């Protein structure tokens, strides 16, 4: 029997085992990093949508200036930045959820907007839409502080991915 050939065979098996282990570990690491990165990308898209919409609502007055539910082209709830207009808030609350989402460019998401006082109980001032149910995924909450009738309030916009 040729001993030189036997030793080479064991070496070969050993190196194949190490190579396979490294290859599998690299594949698992790559897959997990890629799926994490993909999820973060999706989450950052919905986060950006939530934060920019909350900012739009509390910073701008919308169009036309004195818009109501029948003639609104751009939704904005502010008299001036960080000061909410109660008439526009009421008009927004009376709007159909689908047309509001369409005007805000949020057709792909579920939307819930709640304006509440900063008192201990968080008294509701205005609520728009239904909160997310248990099947909702990628839920993002964006809070924006504003003043309404001389009182500090929080506009909380909740956005989530529809199934």
């Amino acid at each position, binding site marked *: 029997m040729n001993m030189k050939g036997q030793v080479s065979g064991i070496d070969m098996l050993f190196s194949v085992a190490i190579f396979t282990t490294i290859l599998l570990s690299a594949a698992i*690491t790559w897959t997990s990093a890629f799926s994490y990165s993909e999820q973060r990308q999706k989450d950052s898209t919905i986060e950006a949508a939530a934060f920019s919409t909350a900012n739009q609502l509390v910073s701008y007055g919308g169009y036309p200036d004195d818009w109501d539910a029948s003639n609104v082209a751009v939704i904005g709830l502010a008299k001036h930045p960080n000061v909410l207009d109660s008439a526009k808030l009421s008009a927004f609350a009376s709007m159909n959820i689908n047309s509001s989402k369409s005007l805000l460019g949020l057709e792909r998401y579920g939307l819930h907007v709640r304006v509440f006082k*900063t008192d201990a109980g968080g008294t509701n001032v205005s609520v728009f839409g239904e909160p997310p149910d248990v099947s909702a995924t990628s839920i993002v909450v964006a809070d924006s*502080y504003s*003043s309404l009738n001389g009182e500090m309030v929080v506009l909380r916009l909740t956005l989530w991915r529809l199934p």
Partner: protein
Amino acid sequence: MSSKGFVLTLDAFFAVFLAAAFMVSIQFYYSSQQPHNSEYLSKMAHDFLAAADESGDLKDAMSKPQQSAELQNLLLKLPSSVASRITVTTYEYKNGLVKEKSTAQASVRNLTGDVVAAQRAFTSPEDEEYYLSVLEASYA
């Protein structure tokens, strides 16, 4: 002992070590990614100061004798996940000069990690005072 075999074994160990270090560093990088973003916190700080000014809460706090306690009550309106410190400097206008009069400070929870800051000036025309508020915030 074959010195050629020994050198190759060292090479192999070195390669395995490098591959393992690379994979561990990828895992570490992704697992240490912060879900919070300081841009949002900065926006929240600016919004908070603007809303506190527009609602009159800041002027109200500065008009009371216990300014720091009033400012602390104001900071408690921020979410419990946020640590914050507010500093309000009062300036007065006298004989054509603006000079610093006093400073009030309050904080809620300890600032840690990345700290963002927002500032806003407001006035009190009736007593010729001018205020500069600075709000620092971080995730608690």
